[in-house]
């Protein structure tokens, strides 16, 4: 008797907790503490973005690699916090991977760029004009001699094929009849006669040269090449190619703050345009003052991730440690720049190795179709069960509904997200939860048939079926746990709802259905049971 009392309290408690967590799903006004605990929708249902990044730390010493990944996680987290996404998740996965989940996000391109860039800010002086000339000559000569390594520059090779004499002198070796231009690099970098300007048309060739290590090795020592950033307002505009001193004068490490400003109408550099204002810390300010003082009339390039953002000519010694990054920026661009500059640079470059984004419309469609599939399935199964088992069928259906409720409540308590495969898991549970009841009912039928009284048939039916229910469900649970370990995101959602569904169905069948059975059927001392 005591046992039974405990059981009834347990059932009541489970029901109350379930109801507590289900009420916020209803469209009614509730206090905040209550509605905050509402089941969370996964990325695939509310839309959003998931990015897997790999920290490329092969250039770091072994001892620093772990720290590099950890600090990369922190920096990415800072950037996202400043970008403003509700409930982001940033996790380290494995040795050197970072998984970022941004639910509800819609500005996919912007987020990708914000998260993935290294954001290494460097100040470098431009080379002198003699050095620039020397660099051009050297590279022109190098390309002329090694044109075979760069087949994409084929158009600078004058083939003798065009020569009418060619037909006569066949069979000779091809190379002897090729003439390679001696000013390939200069030609690529003098758009409309302007030296060191690259036209949009030649840009892909120059970019490929810059990617080639053997090409870069031929730049005179102490110097480097860097392109001007793409002008978002006019993507086809010419871009300047800078010859910079390799030495970094100052880096973003010494920044104290960065902020977006808008130049006023009289501002010469950026009238009525947004720019980024940088403020150095004390040491940075001292170095900046020194550099500007020593290099008046020279140009100082502000380089971010190897791309030159601006390269103003130093007019005077600058005190106070303030600098500006100006250019034809959009407001959005300056905002994102400020975010990455404030959060600091990543200790090593990161590569995006997987990306999945779901638009809000697909998510909404999935919710709608998932709900209707669940509803239809539930109704059909419930009708069938009532026809097949009658009164006990009603009990089984009640258990089924409680079962669904428990799954949703448990998801809320665990803070797990409901995903589309998760909904599939719930739907599958509808089918399988009925199974526990079917096992019990069929067993009771058999026991009745063998001539037992209602009471002992029910008792025997439950106790025999329970063994089977446990065996059958524990094996399914094993596969669900493996699934959880193996899967990510949506698949995990499926494993979670399936496991919860199995546990809930065991509880409802073994505890709740039994209690109801005893209350409704056996207590009346029936001699007949329609099952």
């Amino acid at each position: 008797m005591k046992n039974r009392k405990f059981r009834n309290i347990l059932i009541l408690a489970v029901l109350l907790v379930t109801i507590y967590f289900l009420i916020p799903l209803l469209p009614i006004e509730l206090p905040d503490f209550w509605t905050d605990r509402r089941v969370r929708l996964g990325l695939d249902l509310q839309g959003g973005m998931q990015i897997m990044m790999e920290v490329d730390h092969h250039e770091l010493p072994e001892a620093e690699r772990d720290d590099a990944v950890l600090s990369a996680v922190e920096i990415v987290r800072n950037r996202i916090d400043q970008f403003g996404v509700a409930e982001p998740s940033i996790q380290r996965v494995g040795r050197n991977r970072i998984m970022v989940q941004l639910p509800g996000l819609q500005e996919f391109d912007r987020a990708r760029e914000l998260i993935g860039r290294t954001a290494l800010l460097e100040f470098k002086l431009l080379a002198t004009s003699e050095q620039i000339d020397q660099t051009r000559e050297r590279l022109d000569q190098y390309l002329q001699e090694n044109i075979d390594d760069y087949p994409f520059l084929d158009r600078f090779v004058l083939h003798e094929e065009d020569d009418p004499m060619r037909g006569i002198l066949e069979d000779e070796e091809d190379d002897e009849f090729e003439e390679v231009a001696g000013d390939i690099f200069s030609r690529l970098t003098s758009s409309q006669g302007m030296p060191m300007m690259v036209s949009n048309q030649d840009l892909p060739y120059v970019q490929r040269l810059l990617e080639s290590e053997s090409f870069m090795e031929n730049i005179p020592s102490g110097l480097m090449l860097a392109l001007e950033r793409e002008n978002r307002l006019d993507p086809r505009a010419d871009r300047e190619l800078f010859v910079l001193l390799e030495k970094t004068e100052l880096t973003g490490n010494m920044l104290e703050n960065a902020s977006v400003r808008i130049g006023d109408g009289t501002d010469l550099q950026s009238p009525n345009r947004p720019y980024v204002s940088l403020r150095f810390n004390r040491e940075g300010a001292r170095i900046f003052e020194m550099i500007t003082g020593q290099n008046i009339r020279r140009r100082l390039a502000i380089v971010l991730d190897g791309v030159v953002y601006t390269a103003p000519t130093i007019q005077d010694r600058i005190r106070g440690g303030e600098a500006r990054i100006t250019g034809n920026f959009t407001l959005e661009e300056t905002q994102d720049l400020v975010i990455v500059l404030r959060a600091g640079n990543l200790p090593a470059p990161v590569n995006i190795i997987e990306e999945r984004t779901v638009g809000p419309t697909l998510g909404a469609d999935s919710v709608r179709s998932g709900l209707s599939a669940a509803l239809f399935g539930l109704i059909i199964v419930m009708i069938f069960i009532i026809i097949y088992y009658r009164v006990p069928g009603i009990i089984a259906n009640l258990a089924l509904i409680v079962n669904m409720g428990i799954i949703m409540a448990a998801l809320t308590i665990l803070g797990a997200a409901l995903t589309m495969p998760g909904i599939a898991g719930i739907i599958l549970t509808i089918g399988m939860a009925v199974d526990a009841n079917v096992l019990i009912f069929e067993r009771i039928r058999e026991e009745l048939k063998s001539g037992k009284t209602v009471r002992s048939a029910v008792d025997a039916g439950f106790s025999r079926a329970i063994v089977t229910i446990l065996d059958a469900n524990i094996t399914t649970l094993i596969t669900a746990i493996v699934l959880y370990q193996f899967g990510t995101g949506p698949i995990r959602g499926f494993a979670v709802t399936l496991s919860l569904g199995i546990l809930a169905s065991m509880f409802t069948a073994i505890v709740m259905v039994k209690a109801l059975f005893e209350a409704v059927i056996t207590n009346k001392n029936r001699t007949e049971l329609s099952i």
Partner: protein
Amino acid sequence: MRFFENTKIDFISKRRVAYIFSIILILVGIVALIVGPKFSIDFTGGVSLELDMTAPTPEHPALSIDQVRQVLIDEGITDVEIQTIKGSDDQVFFLFKTQKVDDSFEVQTEAGQDEEEESFVSTARIINLMRTHFPEYTDKPGFIRLQEEVGPRIGEELKGKAIMAILIALLGIIIYIWWRFEFTFGVAAVIALFHDILITVGIFFITGKEISLAIVAALLTIVGYSLNDTIVVFDRIREDLKIYRKESYSSVINHSINETLSRTVITSLTTFVVVFCLYLLGGSVIRDFAFALMIGVIVGTYSSIFVASPLLVEFFGKRQTTRKGGIKKR
């Protein structure tokens, strides 16, 4: 109401027919695995993109796949699989898929031989092309519905993980059944599970459907479901073997299958009905997943009756013709 009351179907004597039927289907599955089923970008790496390009007004003609494909071909993008999906309210969604690495700008030369293994025809490129060529069809807030880019290395890793997951699940099951029943039951159950997985993979191969991450999850679920079914029958066999000590294995097992038949059918029916609802109403994202489960429910039910239980007869029959305590007492 009841189905299958007092049935006395002789399943065991017909087991050879079932074996032949199963072996043929399994062979298809094995051939599928050897030839290589169609793996989705989850496992191969690649790009998948779903765009809403419904005509903005009824006056605009609907876009055709050929029109869209031509735009890509003009830009040198080939090998992209394009499909349309009909949404509710006459919406038309275009699905782009490719596993091909982007080499549209020249051929990757020796000179630029850096470690950039992960460059695909980027989704951004396709999106931009669609925006410039079909501005009226693409200018809407929910234009991008789904965008996925998976690096080939990730896919390769995942393939290994998926195989491991299936093997670990099977191992866990064999150990559990070994503990609860005895080893013979575990072996029969696992053979039946391989049977189910192979047949499902075979049917996916024949129908040309892709094996994705979700399908692997479905396969594991089928394992769980089919096992559930098998264990219910095994449980009864274990019980009956204790009760009918004088009967032969085949007649006891036949009896057990018949006793549990109505439960087997009802559970399979309810499960099939809900999975079928999921297939019909669940939307494009989940359709293949539901399809795999549908096959799984059918094959899983079949295998517990016609494969797993008859196999016990083979195993026990080999050992002894008359029974004397072959079964562990529990």
